[in-house]
């Protein structure tokens, strides 16, 4: 294909599904999983508690739960539900699983800091993400069953996962960042084409939270709360 041909393509040409079908993915996965999403809610609330506790095991458990959240939302939502209507979602799904594995590997290989976090700011941001972002799909679809929960929906999971940059050290952090950026760009472009304005908040928040996570990291934190 010539350069001029490529120029004749717009973002629209690459989105092969409509907003109604996409928003129903959230409703469908919630219906199919019920009542197991209670576990996702417990994990979302429990993770900051574990992260702030002193001790290696608590932090490992928290990071382990986030790793599981990456893998489950990747394999469940992206590969299982989104993949059939959008092929790139399958690639992202497996990348989410790999991200979970990467996080787990970092945890077992000393890639996770044990120093204390600035707890107030971290918990506040975490709770805003896991309690606030799920409602974006509800606002967009008008259906409360579309709640995009942490550990199930990829957008909320990636946004919360971005905050964990705070505890990942040097080289592991560089491996962890690309998916956050790629996913944010991909989903932002998709929501733009679908004109799903509420959903656009999630990728923007994810990029912001990568910055916030780096800022909250114990090494750079000036005074832990």
């Amino acid at each position, binding site marked *: 294909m010539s350069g001029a*041909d490529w120029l*004749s*393509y717009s973002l*629209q*040409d690459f*989105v*092969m*599904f*409509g907003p*109604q*079908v996409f928003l*129903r*993915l959230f409703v*469908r996965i919630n219906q199919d999983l019920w009542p197991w999403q209670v576990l996702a809610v417990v994990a979302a609330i429990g993770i900051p508690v574990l992260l702030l506790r002193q001790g290696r095991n608590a932090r490992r458990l928290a990071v382990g739960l986030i790793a599981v959240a990456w893998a489950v939302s990747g394999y469940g939502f992206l590969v299982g*539900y989104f993949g*059939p*209507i*959008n*092929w790139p979602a399958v690639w992202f799904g497996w990348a989410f699983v790999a991200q979970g594995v990467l996080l787990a590997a970092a945890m077992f290989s000393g890639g996770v800091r044990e120093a204390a976090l600035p707890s107030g700011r971290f918990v506040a941001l975490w709770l805003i993400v896991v309690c606030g972002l799920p409602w974006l799909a509800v606002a967009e679809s008008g259906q409360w069953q579309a709640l995009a929960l942490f550990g199930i929906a990829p957008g909320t999971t990636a946004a919360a996962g971005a905050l964990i940059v705070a505890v990942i050290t040097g080289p592991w952090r560089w491996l962890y960042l690309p998916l956050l950026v790629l996913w944010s760009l991909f989903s932002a472009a998709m929501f733009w084409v679908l004109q799903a304005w509420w959903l656009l908040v999630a990728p923007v928040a994810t990029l912001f939270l990568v910055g916030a996570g780096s800022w909250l990291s114990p090494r750079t934190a000036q005074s832990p709360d």
Partner: protein
Amino acid sequence: MANRITRRKFLISSGLAGIALKSPMLFANTSGNAASSPIMRRIPGMDESIPAIGMGTWITFNVGGDTQLVQQRTRVLKTFFDLGGTVVDGSPMYGSAADVMGEALDSLDAHDRIFAATKIWTGDESETRAEAARSSRRWGVERFDLLQVHNLLGWQGHLETLKQMKANGEVRYIGITTSHGRRHREFAQIMERESLDFVQLTYNVLDHEVEDRLLPLAQERGIGVIVNRPFQGGSLFRRFQSEPLPNWAGEVGVSNWAEFFLKYIISHPAVTCAIPATSKVEHMKENMGALYGALPNAGQRQRMADYVRSL
């Protein structure tokens, strides 16, 4: 005046109505003059006619495993068939649309009512047969009526195999597609050199570049023309639906914007069929309205184009 219906009269007329609904082709009028019969177009060089309005499946039928939406799209397809449509266009590029079409055809038991058209969409030129076979499994059809090389991707190799497949009776018609005005020069060269039954291209009241070269060439070479993006992917509605129809719309057999856009297209003498896509039963009814009634003549077509461009 009340008209008494006897049991005998009722049985005869309901039987006829049933036949009419089941086989709209039976009452087809190939000239498109009678208000009550669908506008049919002859496939150039063939003894076969197809309804001038078909349907596309890009985006609209890609609903994955969502049973609620599959059922809803099945109702869209049923409306299409009930109103006299037969030509359905798909592509392996359209995600789950082929599987959804297969499910819908199964539940309507409508495999014999469809003129099934899909595409070969792979850069691997040795994959033609394999991809056609995969598509026919997904649609649940024994063979396709029409196989088209999607956007000229690997067209040389695919076209050779498609010709053999046609000779063996594995497919009835073959063709090539483009859209959005892409690669028209190469498209025209292929139309000049190759023996094609159909070409598929973009044509609508705003995108009319094909009027200069490709449509006259199709007429000259006896190639059927399927028109994609008749509503410019829906943007014609977004731009013009709030505007009034011209007060002479009735003269050209038009009662809404969907009919306006579609009748403009199918009244071009080179066009065989337009394939609008929709996810809604109500929109399908509007679109299929263009399959009936009067068509604009050349002067009226010009007036239609001028009117839209003046808005």
